[in-house]
């Protein structure tokens, strides 16, 4: 097996790309947030709870969550992403919804909907994780009842090494695996775990442990960004 001695961008194997976060970036939305990690950038806007149409989707027991994930046509590597929804974005919307729903309590809003729109103007792998991290902040900003925030990061394998926060070069490496993980920072529970590629049992364990540690850093950033909205000028 070949050795991955140094990462393509010179980072340490457990090192995340530089991050930034801001809450309240879309004034007309009920809640919004931006999260940027390296060259991947996600904007999330939350609308609602609001009236749900079409009516057949209404649930009289509870409010529902609807997620729309979208990579902008000019994102990625300049080889134009086809605009609009597709098989990929539909699936990612669904996994984001499943990652966020366990913390939300929408029982107070029967027949209503909470809409999350995530737009990615610039992408360099790890988009679903950036989307979840941004969406969790936007939901909190919208004043919804949540048990916890949600933080997500991609772990993975490149050749013999377990690495964190893969960029596109690593993500698309022929000998590797991509393992996006979403974690509730206070309870340590996992709400998203996917894998594309092959790893050994030990590598998977190591990847999840490392992702949990990395999520603590992301959580601190989320907390700071949410609080920053209300500091005394």
């Amino acid at each position, binding site marked *: 097996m070949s050795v991955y001695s140094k990462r393509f961008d010179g980072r340490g194997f457990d090192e995340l790309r530089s991050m930034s976060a801001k809450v309240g970036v879309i004034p007309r939305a*009920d*809640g919004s947030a931006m999260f940027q990690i390296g060259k991947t950038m996600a904007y999330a806007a939350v609308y*609602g*709870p*609001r*009236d749900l149409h079409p009516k057949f989707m209404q649930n*009289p027991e509870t409010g529902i969550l609807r997620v729309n994930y979208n990579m902008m046509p000019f994102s990625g590597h300049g080889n134009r992403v086809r605009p609009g929804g597709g098989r990929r974005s539909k699936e990612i919307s669904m996994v984001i919804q499943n990652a966020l729903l366990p*913390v939300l*309590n929408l029982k*107070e*809003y*029967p*027949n*209503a909907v909470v809409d999350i729109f995530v737009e990615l103007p610039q992408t360099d792998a790890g988009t679903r994780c950036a989307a979840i991290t941004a969406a969790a902040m936007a939901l*909190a*900003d*919208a*004043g*919804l*009842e*949540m*048990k*916890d*925030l949600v933080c997500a990061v991609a772990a993975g394998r490149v050749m013999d090494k377990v690495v964190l926060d893969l960029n596109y070069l690593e993500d698309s490496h022929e000998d590797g695996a991509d393992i996006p993980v979403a974690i*509730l*920072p*206070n*309870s340590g529970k996992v709400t998203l775990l996917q894998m594309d590629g092959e790893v050994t049992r030990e590598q998977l364990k190591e990847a999840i442990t490392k992702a949990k540690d990395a999520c603590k850093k992301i959580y601190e950033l*989320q*907390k700071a960004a*949410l*609080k920053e909205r*209300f500091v*005394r000028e």
Partner: protein
Amino acid sequence: MTEQVLVKDKEIVVPGEKLAIGMSFLPGSGAYRDSEHIVAQRLGMVSVEGKVIKLIALSGKYLPKIKDKIVGKVIDVLMTGWRMELNSPYSAVMTLKDATSEFIARGADLRQYYDLGDYVVCQVVNVTSQKLVDVSMRGPGLQKLRGGRVVEVSPQKVPRIVGKEGSMVAMIKQATGCEIIVGQNGWIWLSGEPEGEVVAEQAIRKIEQEAHLGGLTDRMATWLGDKTGKSVAPRGGAQ
């Protein structure tokens, strides 16, 4: 195990943040218990009242509550009443009997009384578990709103705009000469001279932005004084 509050009073906390440790503390609104911890359930400002730890919400939509005085907008006319929009996920119905003390003949055109797009001050009389809302206009001060303008603010900021016993809104009324009706749902109706309306709207926006900061009444008194050239007292008359 030591029992203690882990956050400061009036601190801003995020969902999932631990507020206190110990079984003697009680979670108030916006908080929940997770074994020995009291945990924040939303983004909010901590308020410790003895052993009860609750959160004051800083954002969120209006949920209708019985007896709330609100400003509503007529969006549809039904067979026996009107449908109202309340700046909330749910709309309300006002039946004929609750609408006016006037006699309304069978088959009369209800748009003569309240037309589509009209704003009214009404009161929530009933909310069901499925969030079906009934409002009424029978009561003192409940009326149709003619002229003026409606300003939308975050419903969480309404108590700050009203002030203690209506002191803040009374101050704005005195300074600008406007009539002001503040609905609990975050819709505020203003009517007066155009210049006064503009100043009143700016004042409301300023309060909304600085609602979580202290010493607001005094700052608003100075600000209103500068804008209108009148002397504005923090305790400016009864409402």
